[in-house]
């Protein structure tokens, strides 16, 4: 018994280690095909490309652990990017404040309708996704809003010692979300609600308040993501962040957090966001037929969930 355990990997280990193994395999495959892939410069580009997805996915991690889902993150990113672009001209780097406030408010609206209105989050955020994007379209009329402010661009999309600032900001977000999820009472309440909402409610957890806070948190993070995206593209457009919600959900679940709620980890989401970004970056670097790339992306998504999912924990596979 003991012997065989030390010799061979158990299914549990495979499950746990799969995201990191997948990441390593992908990196190795791309590195073998293109010498450029592992260069510092490209790694920084990947990191930078991953930032917006990662920040949104970190927020999504909380929502999913709480047993809900948020389809409006892409729209919130577009909305806050718009706010950042509009205000950057006058207040420069402080555009982060209105961008984050708008993100937070959008998230709180989701949260209040979900928690107080008792409407499933899938529907609420499907609706607000359309509404928020409608608002962006209504205000921009499709025109990109360029950001000229130098200080804004330098702070949010410049580099120091060749490290992009956005990557540093993302590291900060990782640290904060990891602490909040793992070390605070709030983080435990989020898990409890995802594990069993009614039980949490009867045990005295303020379910409504916590859920509103969770949606507010993802909104706030999307506000930040929108700002970073606006800084990276030096403009806000109506199409910004389209489909980001699905990528964010994919990042979370590829990282091993099940959609059923109650469990999940920040490090998983980091791996998931990196896998999705690297897959895309690598396929473009090696010049894979763009018509073929989507097929591979879809298969990788299914495969990783197929392997990482803990079937013992999920009585019901829905």
């Amino acid at each position: 018994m003991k012997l065989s355990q030390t010799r061979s990997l158990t299914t549990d280990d495979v499950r746990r280690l799969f995201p990191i193994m997948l990441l390593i395999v992908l990196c190795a495959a791309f590195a073998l095909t293109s010498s450029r892939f592992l260069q510092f410069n490209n790694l920084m580009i990947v990191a930078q490309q991953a930032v917006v997805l990662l920040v949104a996915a970190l927020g999504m991690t909380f929502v999913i652990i709480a047993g809900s889902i948020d389809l409006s993150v892409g729209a919130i990113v577009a909305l806050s990017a718009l706010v950042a672009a509009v205000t950057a001209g006058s207040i420069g780097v402080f555009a982060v404040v209105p961008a984050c406030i708008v993100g937070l408010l959008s998230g709180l609206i989701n949260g209040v309708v979900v928690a107080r209105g008792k409407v499933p989050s899938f529907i609420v955020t499907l609706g607000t996704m359309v509404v928020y994007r409608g608002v962006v379209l209504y205000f921009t009329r499709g025109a990109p809003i360029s950001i000229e402010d130098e200080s804004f661009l330098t702070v949010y999309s410049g580099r120091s010692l060749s490290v992009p600032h956005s990557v540093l900001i993302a590291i900060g977000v990782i640290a904060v979300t990891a602490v909040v999820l793992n070390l605070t009472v709030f983080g435990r309440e989020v898990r409890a609600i995802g594990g069993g909402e009614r039980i949490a409610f009867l045990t005295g957890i303020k379910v409504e308040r916590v859920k509103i806070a969770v949606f507010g948190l993802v909104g706030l993070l999307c506000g930040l993501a929108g700002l970073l995206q606006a800084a990276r593209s030096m403009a806000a457009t109506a199409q910004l962040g389209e489909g980001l919600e699905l990528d964010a959900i994919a990042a979370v679940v590829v990282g091993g957090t099940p959609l059923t709620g109650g469990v999940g980890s920040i490090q998983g989401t980091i791996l998931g966001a990196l896998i999705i970004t690297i897959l895309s970056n690598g396929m473009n670097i090696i010049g894979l037929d763009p018509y073929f790339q989507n097929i591979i992306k879809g298969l990788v998504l299914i495969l990783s969930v197929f392997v990482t999912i803990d079937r013992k924990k999920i009585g019901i596979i829905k």
Partner: protein
Amino acid sequence: SKDKPVIGVVVPTLAAQFWNNYVDFMKKGAADLGVELVVLNADNKPDQMVKSLEDLVARPADGIIFTPYWATATRGLTLAKDAGIPVILTDTYPDYPPQTDRFPNYLAFVGPSDQDAGRQMAEALFAAMSPDANGKKVIGVVNGTAGTSVAIDRRKGLEDALKDHPEVVVAGEVDGNFVRDTSQTVFESLYQGHPDIKGVWAANGGTATGVMTALKNAGKQPGKDIFVVAMDLNPENVDAVESGDLLFDIGGHWLQGGFALVMLYDEIKGIDLPKEQDSVKLKLLPVTKDTVAQFKADFPEGVPPYDFKAHSRAYTPDAPAAAFELTYSK
């Protein structure tokens, strides 16, 4: 209320600046001519394009102007034919001519030749590039949304130019989906894999902006280290031509809707469109550093001072026929 005809317009999307310019110019025309303009948005969905056309037929509109993305021309023309509604197509040529027996209600086509524009972009790019040590010119291609005829036709134009220029090598192609952020991301990766790229053919304005942003982030100076060409003449791209970042841009075809509006208005007012004027293939306006000042003077805010009534034969019976040339004043 027949004196104020209802003209319905379906655009492929309103989330892109180009189509908003298109609609704005038409709105100006509608106000001048006295037309009730109903603008519908297909939201980038083929089915919604068809539905919107059906809704216009049900309303009914007195005339329809639409852009048959996703091969929706035949469907739209059939619907309109059954309801006796005249149609002008813009922007995307459906591979059959107007005013045939099959579709007598298909009055005219007004649009650019995307293929020609794609070729012009390529020619301008190739001419500006100097060959590398091996005598090759290495370019990258950022395509538009796969499946749109616009993307396909522009790419065909590039292909035509490539045939005449064996010294040009395509290092790689990516799909930027006509969206600037996507274009930026995919080009970042492409460029990382092929740092020898010295020229970029970008399928539209937003795509080019994304590419230029990526280049700047990579510490390169577009227009010096690497040339970028684009299409659509979006204001920001015109500015980029002025600053020297963008080598070449071509467009002006957002005016096509306004031109079509005049033609359709006259038809509704009983003035038949002559057969020989049923295909207006706009010769697009190329803009380079040399002509950008002129462009800005002639097209303030992208909209030329255009007297719709003067071009409408219902208002000005002797209005000249070929009124829709895109030209510089000097």
